[in-house]
């Protein structure tokens, strides 16, 4: 994979369009730590999962992990 292709793939991951599993596989089975380092080299942020649709899941986990707050 060329540098441009790698950067394009990492940009897609950074925007949460592809999974980290896809990135690791495409880059030859690198580790998650390597992915983090490659993102850092290119000043790309870690993907922030979209909030929409996830509030319910986070609220359910909050109720389980911090029951007094729920």
């Amino acid at each position, binding site marked *: 994979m060329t540098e441009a292709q790698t950067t394009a793939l990492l940009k897609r991951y950074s925007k949460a369009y592809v999974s980290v*599993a896809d990135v690791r596989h495409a880059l030859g089975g690198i*580790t998650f*730590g390597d992915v983090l*380092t490659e993102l*850092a080299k290119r000043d790309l942020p870690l993907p922030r999962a979209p909030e929409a649709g996830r509030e319910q899941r986070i609220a359910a986990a909050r109720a389980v992990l911090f029951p007094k707050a729920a």
Partner: protein
Amino acid sequence: MSRPRASLFVLDTGPLITLAAADSLDYLLYPNVPVVIPDAVFYEATRDSAKLGAQSIIEWVKAHHEQVEIAVTNTYLNFDTARSVNPNAYEPNLGEQASVEVIEEPTRLQGDEKAVLLCEETMVTRRIVVRERERIIELSTMDFLNLLEAEQRIQSADAVFDRALAAGRTPSRVEKFSEHDAALRDAVRETLGTARRVPSGGGRRRRKS
């Protein structure tokens, strides 16, 4: 001792490495529930001491052995046996297979216990066929951090991710780790070996404290 209301299962290396890089592994302990890490996931996160976060993860697991369980799996035992014959043995889905095995153990999720699964690789949870799927909740690292932020246990979830990336930009840190390569390899072996020596006895297999 009564069973916990919930356990936090760390099913792949992503959350461990991100939190380790951000010097924030202790956040996993904030809910005050048992933290379970499959042995193969621990191995994958720490097998190369030059990798980001490896040393922190080993030290953190050793320091918190009362709260953190390294769960023994046949998947990892089989891999370790294969590796003793062929040191170059490689299993691409080792952590994933071990995670599925841990969650599906019949002794897990007793009573009304819930499982919060922390993972980045969504394919892990797709493969899990637990008896009562509604009892598991899957979270990404950012979900977990957002939860802690909502709970006012941390100031900013985004800041944790920023710290992790900042660590990735610091090669001197990686070089420092590699100086201790042999000692770290021994520490990984010792941690996994201790987990294995504890007899299962039909219950949970925990690391010896």
